[in-house]
Structures are given as C-alpha cells and as structure tokens.
C-alpha cells in the first residue's frame, strides 16, 4: 500500500525516458509506456488487496514540498476507497487503450511521442486521484490538462486539431481559475491545503458560510471545465480531433471524470454548502439535457459519442448534486467501461473505413466486422440502461438518488433524458452496424486482434461491472465500499421499471425510425425545423463564444494594445520627449547671431539679478 505513489512515478519516468530517448528505443519506446501503466495496474491490485485487508485510509507518501515562512505545502498520496477505485479505472482503461493504440497508431509519425504523452497524461491522472492535498491535486489537474492538450493536438498539422487542443486547454483553464481561487479561499479560511484538514475545519464550522459557498462553487467551476459541464462543455466534442484511442481514454473514461471525482473528493464541502450543491445539480441537469439532445442530431460518429459523454457527465453531476457520491462514482465506473468501449469500437470502425466518421455513409458493418459490432452493441445497450448491463445498475442508482435528494421536477427531466439516451444510442447502433450496407462500407474489414482484444475485455467489463453494486455474500456492495458502509444497495421498483421502460421505448423508437423507417427523419426535421437547427448548431454556444472572443476579448486586447502604443507611448512618452525637443528648437532662435542682442541679454541679465536682489530676496529671505 505504501507503494501506491509508484504508480504515477513510473509513468512520469516513462514520459521522461520515452520523450527524450524514445526514438533510439525499439518500438519508439512504446513498450516502456505500456510497462509503466501495466505496473500501475499491478499496483492497483496490490493496493486494493491491502485496502480490503486493512479497511482504513492511509497515506502512501507525504513530504514537504515548499516551506516558506509560516506556510508549508506538503505533498502526499492518500489511499481510500475513492482513490482506489479511480486508480483501478484509470490504470485499467489506460492499459487497454495503450495496447489498442499499438495497432491503431501503427505507422504514424511521432509514434514514440504519442506514447510519451500518454504516459504523461496517465501519470498526471494517477497523481490527481491519489492526491491528499489541494495543491497537489491542482498540480495534477493542470498536468492532466497539458496531457490532453498534447494528445488532442497530436496531429497538430491539422488546423482543426491545433484549434481543438487550444480550445480544450483554454476552456478548462477558465474553470481552473475558479478552482485555484477556490483553493486559495479555503486556504485563507483554514490555513491549510491538506484536504483532511480543510474538511475538518469546514465540518467544525470554522469557515464562514458565505465564503464557503463561494469557494465551493469556484471549486465546482474547475470541475465544470474538466468534466465538460455547461457552459464549459464546448471543448469536448471538438476534442474528438485527437486520435480515437485518446478520445477513449481522455474523453470517455478518465480526464472528463476528473471533475466528477473532484466533486466527490471535495464532497464534505458540498455537504456543508447546500446552495453550492444545488448549483451542481442544476448545472448537471442542464448539461445532461443539452448533451442528450445534441447527440440526437449529430452525424459524426465520434461527436455523437462525445455529446453522449457530455450528457452522462451531466447525469453524474446531477447525482452528486442530489447528494449521492456512490451513485455518481458507480456511474463513472460503468460509463468508463462502456464509453471507452464505444470509442475504441468507433476507432475500429474508422480504421476500417479509412477514417470516415460520417455515420450517414455507414451501414451494415455488422457483417464486415462482427466483433466490433457485437462489442459496440454491448456498450450502447449498457449506456442506454438496458438490464442487466452495467449502465442499467448505475443509472438506476442515480435516478434513485435524484428521487431521494431533489424535487420531482428533476426526476421527470432526468427520465426524459434517459429516453433520449436510449434513442441516440439506438440511432447510432442501427445506422452504423445494421440496415443496408453502404457503398463506402464495401471494403471494410475487421481490425487486428491487438485492437479487438481490448474491445472484448472492455465489453466483458461493461457487461458485468454492474453487479458490483449488489450485496452478495461477504461482499458488501459498491455503495458500502465507497462510503465505508454507509450506503447499502437499494431499489425502488417503480423507478427501475419506469427507467427500463423508457430505455426500451427509446430503443424501439430508434428501431422504428432507423431500421424500419416507419418514421421519416426528413419529416421530423421538417416539422421541428427550428429545433433541429438549434441542435445542429449546438445551441449556438460555439457561436456565442466565438462572438465573445472576437468582439469582446480580442477587441479589448486590441484596444489595450492600441492604447498602449498611441496614448501611453506616442502621446505620453514620445509626446513628452517631443515637447522637450521642440522647446529646444524654439529656444535656439534666441541665439540670433547679433552682437547687440547678446549684449542686451547680458545687460538685462545683470539688471534682473540686481532687481531680484533688491526686490525679491528681502521678501523671501
């Protein structure tokens, strides 16, 4: 258990070695990265076993990082249920994605760099989940951002990729401003960065409620950035410009989960600040709704998945807002498996279709690539909430939490979103894999086994992790594990049935529309033209941001720039210099060249001195 810190450390080391010396190593050093993350996974096993044996939170590692005057910043890594689970999810998904990437990225330029960046990202992510204090968490948080920046921008020659990487970094950074300010506010109030200390102080009521609410909301702002919550969600769909395995890793399972993790980690704050928790719930609900509706109309395979991710993240936040950490984390787990599976499956499809991502050009791929189709179907059904796949369990938990913790309006809207989730998943599944084979899909073929193997493993995971929720025999169930025995498994039969029915309706509707063509999409579009337009244009959020950047930020910047040059420099600085210089040029004409003028000046000068003496000095002296 003490060795948990090795997990990030190994990956940091791999990053260093591969990025500097990768090109001299066999396989460009990719094996090192995989070994490192494999080591991380093994450590997860070790830590889990230890933890299950010991059952108490421990510090794996702690040391002083910076000490200045009265303040001390220590670094440490904490082992508790939350971090153990996250350690598992991250290292497992990352391992599979890296193995998958061996095949997917084969032959790419900068193959080694890809793995180096991967290692950096994973290392940062592992640090993030293990961090025992807010500063280390923030550091890892930022490094995660860097990792995703590098990975999204991996194909930086593409303008869209470069743009998307920038957008992702900048948008999340806006949230990070809030996070840092929140952390600093807490530090001001409590005098420590250690989470345990901060939470203890908050629980003891040492922090003024107003400040606490603001600090908590600001911390949530950080989570909004990373977890793509409205209104900072815009970067996530664009981030699909990165290589698909990256999308699977970062934008499905890990980085976007960081926000959820953060709220879960800092939950004592949210508990103490109910207003902030309400904010979380509302933002979560809006995000979930927007994501789901937009996923309905997108035609790009990865974008549909991306909006689906946005929607599910919103759902997790909703659950957190409702007060249930176990439900959110459980969904995080289930979603991680399912969504990673879907992304990798999408990657497999793209691999087969020569990087085609438009689902309208796909169809009937089931026959060409059966393994991909099967695993993809499992993932889609899981996310749609069809029992007994994992998504069913987690979604059920979340709905229950909403039912328990929030007003019924939330629940109604959440159920509508469940319907939408099933509908867009059905749309995706049927359009791509079922129905008539499209001409472009003629030459598709199944991917190599290094790619399908991870698919199979993830599919198995997506299928069975849901059962972790149950309390069976000596096993206490997921909820009890994560809350150390405070949250048993519960079922509200009515709610469960309603959710399943809605999911099935959604799927049925999808089948009717996209396979049987019972309803014309054209007709629907005609009927709800403005809705479609609104959705296709992503609620005009990107336009709004673009407008704000072009018309406000850049205009402000150019105003300052011009002000600096014209007012401060040309008028202020050069103007002063020019005035001095001009006065020099003026005064020089006193020097007329005429002797009598010179003599006059002397005479007047002497007279002035005498007069000054006579008249002024006695008065001032």
């Amino acid at each position, binding site marked *: 258990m003490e060795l948990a810190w090795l997990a990030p450390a190994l990956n940091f080391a791999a990053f260093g070695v591969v990025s500097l010396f990768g090109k001299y190593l066999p396989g460009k050093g990719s094996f090192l990265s995989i070994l490192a993350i494999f080591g991380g996974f093994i450590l997860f096993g070790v830590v889990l076993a230890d933890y299950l044996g010991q059952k108490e939170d421990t510090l794996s590692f702690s040391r002083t990082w910076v000490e200045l005057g009265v303040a001390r910043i220590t670094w440490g890594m904490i082992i508790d249920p939350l971090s153990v689970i996250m350690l598992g999810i991250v290292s497992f998904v990352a391992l599979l994605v890296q193995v998958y990437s061996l095949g997917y990225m084969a032959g790419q330029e900068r193959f080694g760099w890809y793995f180096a960046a991967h290692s950096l990202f994973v290392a940062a992510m592992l640090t993030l989940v293990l961090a025992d204090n807010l500063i280390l968490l923030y550091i890892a948080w930022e490094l995660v951002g860097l990792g995703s920046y590098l990975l999204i921008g991996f194909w930086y020659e593409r303008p869209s990729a470069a743009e998307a990487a920038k957008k992702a970094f900048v948008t999340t950074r806006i949230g990070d401003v809030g996070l840092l300010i929140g952390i600093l506010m807490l530090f001001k109030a409590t005098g420590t960065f250690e989470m345990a200390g901060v939470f203890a102080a908050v629980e003891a009521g040492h922090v003024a409620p107003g400040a606490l609410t603001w600090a908590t909301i600001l911390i949530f702002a950080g989570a909004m950035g990373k977890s793509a919550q409205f209104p900072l969600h815009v970067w996530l769909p664009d981030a699909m410009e990165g290589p698909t395995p990256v999308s699977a890793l970062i934008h499905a399972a890990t980085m976007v989960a960081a926000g959820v993790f953060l709220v879960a980690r800092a939950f004592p704050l949210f508990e103490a600040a109910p207003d902030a928790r309400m904010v979380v719930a509302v933002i979560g609900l809006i995000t979930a709704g927007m994501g789901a509706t937009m996923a309905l109309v997108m035609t790009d395979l990865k974008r549909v998945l991306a909006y689906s991710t946005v929607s599910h993240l919103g759902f997790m936040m909703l659950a957190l807002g409702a007060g249930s950490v176990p439900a959110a984390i459980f969904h995080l787990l289930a979603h991680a498996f399912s969504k990673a599976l879907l992304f990798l499956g999408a990657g497999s499809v793209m691999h087969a279709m020569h990087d085609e991502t438009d689902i309208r050009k796909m169809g009937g791929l089931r026959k060409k690539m059966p393994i991909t189709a099967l695993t993809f179907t499992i993932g889609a059904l899981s996310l749609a909430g069809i029992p007994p796949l994992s998504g069913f369990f987690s979604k059920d938990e979340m709905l229950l939490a909403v039912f328990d913790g929030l007003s019924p309006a939330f629940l109604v809207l959440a159920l509508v979103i469940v319907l939408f989730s099933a509908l867009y998943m059905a749309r995706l599944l049927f359009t791509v894999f079922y129905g008539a084979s499209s001409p472009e899909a003629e030459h598709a073929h199944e991917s190599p086994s290094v790619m399908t193997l991870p698919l199979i493993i993830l599919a198995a995971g997506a299928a069975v992790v849901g059962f972790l929720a149950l309390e069976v025999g000596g096993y206490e169930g997921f909820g009890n594990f994560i809350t150390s025995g405070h949250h048993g498994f519960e079922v509200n039969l009515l709610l469960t049935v309603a959710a399943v029915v809605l999911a099935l309706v959604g799927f049925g509707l999808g089948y009717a529309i996209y396979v049987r063509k019972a309803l014309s999409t054209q007709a629907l579009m005609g009927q709800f033209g403005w809705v479609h337009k609104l959705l296709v244009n992503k609620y005009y959020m990107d336009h709004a941001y673009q407008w704000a950047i072009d018309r406000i930020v850049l205009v402000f910047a150019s105003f300052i720039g011009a002000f600096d040059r014209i007012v401060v420099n040309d008028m202020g600085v050069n103007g002063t210099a020019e005035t001095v210089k001009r006065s020099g040029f003026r005064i020089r004409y006193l020097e007329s060249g005429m002797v009598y003028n010179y003599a006059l000046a002397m*005479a007047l000068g002497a007279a002035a001195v005498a007069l000054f003496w006579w008249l002024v000095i006695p008065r001032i002296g």
Partner: protein
Amino acid sequence: MITLVHVQVLSAGLFCIGLYGVLARRNAVLVLLAIELMLNAVNVNLVGIAAFVDHSKFLGQIIAVFVITVAAAEVGLALAIILRLYRNKGTTNVDQLNLMKW
C-alpha cells in the same frame, strides 16, 4: 558743492550712454567706442570714490590707471581684429556678423 553723489550720477549716466551705444550702434568701431565710454564711466566712479571717501586716496586712482591701460590695449587688439574682419568681409557692420547663429 560737488559731492560723491554727483560724481556717481555722472558716472552712471556715462555708463548708460555707453550701454545705449553698445546696444544701438551697428558699426563695430562705434560699439567699441561705446564700450570705452563705459570704461571711462568706471574710471570716473573710481577716481570720485578715491577722492571723496578713500583715506589712502590712492587705490581708486591706481585701479583707474590700470583700467585705462587695459582699455587701451583692448581697443588696440579689437581694432586689429575688426580690421581683419573688414579686409575679409568688406564691412564692419555687426548686423552682417551672422554667419553663425542658432
């Protein structure tokens, strides 16, 4: 009766006339003469003070003698230089001494 004040007024008047000459004349030689007038105002002043106030009676006169001598030398030198100027430029008008200005 003539007092020191009378002498000093005379001296000051001479000085002012000289000053006016320096400022108003355009011919270099006349300017020089005006300066001589100012120097003589000094001499009048010195001798007057020596006569009326100075108990040793000599110092002012001695200074005046020096001034006369120096002034004579000065005039000589100045005339030589003005002559040089006249040779080269053909004028002694100070208005035209404006090769260098500003």
